[in-house]
């Protein structure tokens, strides 16, 4: 099951949605909590939608645009990002989160199939700018815990939270 995922490094760069800032994506073998079987197509869709959400994150926080969040974020994750964008706009800041690599492990698929949780050891470049002046650029390695829920056409991120490594 899920051989393509278990096989090792997968670069999902072929998709058009990942045409900008292609990040390498590696999906770990997993031992899912929960009684529900995870279909290959579901696993692939979850990973792809999650990785694409980083592009949305990048676009939203770099351009201070709340409107782009809808496609990939919902609930608390969307609310928090909305607040952050409003804070950035108030301070005249914008921040680029450019993901470079993802090391993903699916950890929980809820019994009714309405949520899936993954962890991601992600590397990204964070650049903070005050209008056109770059204030700092840092390379960050962080571990994220992510909860996604299905919507009409794609999985959307409901929780996006860096946890202490």
């Amino acid at each position, binding site marked *: 099951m899920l051989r393509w995922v278990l096989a090792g490094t997968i670069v999902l760069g072929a998709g058009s949605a990942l045409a900008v800032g292609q990040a390498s994506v590696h999906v770990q073998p997993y031992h899912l909590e929960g009684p529900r079987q995870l279909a290959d197509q579901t696993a692939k869709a979850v990973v792809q939608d999650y990785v694409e959400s980083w592009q949305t994150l990048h676009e939203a926080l770099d351009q201070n645009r709340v409107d782009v969040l809808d496609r990939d974020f919902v609930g608390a994750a969307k609310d928090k990002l909305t607040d952050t964008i409003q804070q950035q706009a108030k301070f005249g800041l914008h921040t680029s989160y450019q993901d470079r690599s993802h090391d993903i492990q699916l950890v929980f698929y809820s*019994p009714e199939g309405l949520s899936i949780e993954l962890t991601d050891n992600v590397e990204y470049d964070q650049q903070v700018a005050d209008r056109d002046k770059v204030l700092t650029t840092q390379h960050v390695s962080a571990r994220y815990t992510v909860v996604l829920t299905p919507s009409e056409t794609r999985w959307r991120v409901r929780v996006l939270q860096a946890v202490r490594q």
Partner: protein
Amino acid sequence: MRLVRALLVSGLTACAALQVCAQGGLTVPKAIEAGNSFSVQSSGSGPATLYIVGPQQVIKRDVQLGSTIDFGEGTLYGAGHYLVFVTGSGESAALDVLPASKAGDVSFLARPSRLPVGLREGITGAVYVFDTYQNLVTTPVAVSFQLSTPGSMAQSRAVTTRDGAAWIAMDSSPREGAAQFVARVGDISATRVIGQVPGDPCGLQMKATSAGQNVALETAPVRDCSGNAVPDGTIITFTESHNGAQTTVDVPLKRGVAKVEMPAYPGATISVASGVVLGNQIRWGR
């Protein structure tokens, strides 16, 4: 670029064992709990601007270098990884905000909303535990689940969260009725109501009596295997076979029983069923 990255990584590693992290003259706690007060110590002198930037929150504050900058309770509450830096000095540090240790909210999803009684592991519940700031509590937390139906013994189980999530599967009660399904973390709880309805008919029986040219058929009160009355409206099918011809009548249950009259053909075979559940069979006398 690689050199810069290497320096940053080595710097972060060096301060990993410390409670506070001093980088380029900024002394910042390595980690704080969401909503707790904390302080940042800067070196140098003169006015500057301090930033704390992450996807969850952004803080900007005018400061005097060389002073201690205090942040009160509730200032920084979004769990995540933050970059802390001061303009003009090149000073920066990393700060992790951890979810509060106390649960403040439980997201509880229970399925299905309605199911037959006596179904093994037919009810599932999944919870995500959050603190009061809607941060996912990723440290293990004990969650107790309880399923109680009036007139039945309650089922209780305890599960520990992993990465903020926990799940359970429980049997539906032998008794019909609305079950209270409760997930509790400390003094926080969430309740869902699960409708438990009777299962398929069990031991379906009918009797036949003469009614002039017809035979009157009537079932005994129809119940499931746990003794719950099967709801009115459930279809009961009577089938009469005689001389190679077959007559079928569907009758909804009314007040727990189904009644019908069919032609009284001597030697006819009459059977009763509900869905795939077969009842008894009667051969009508000549």
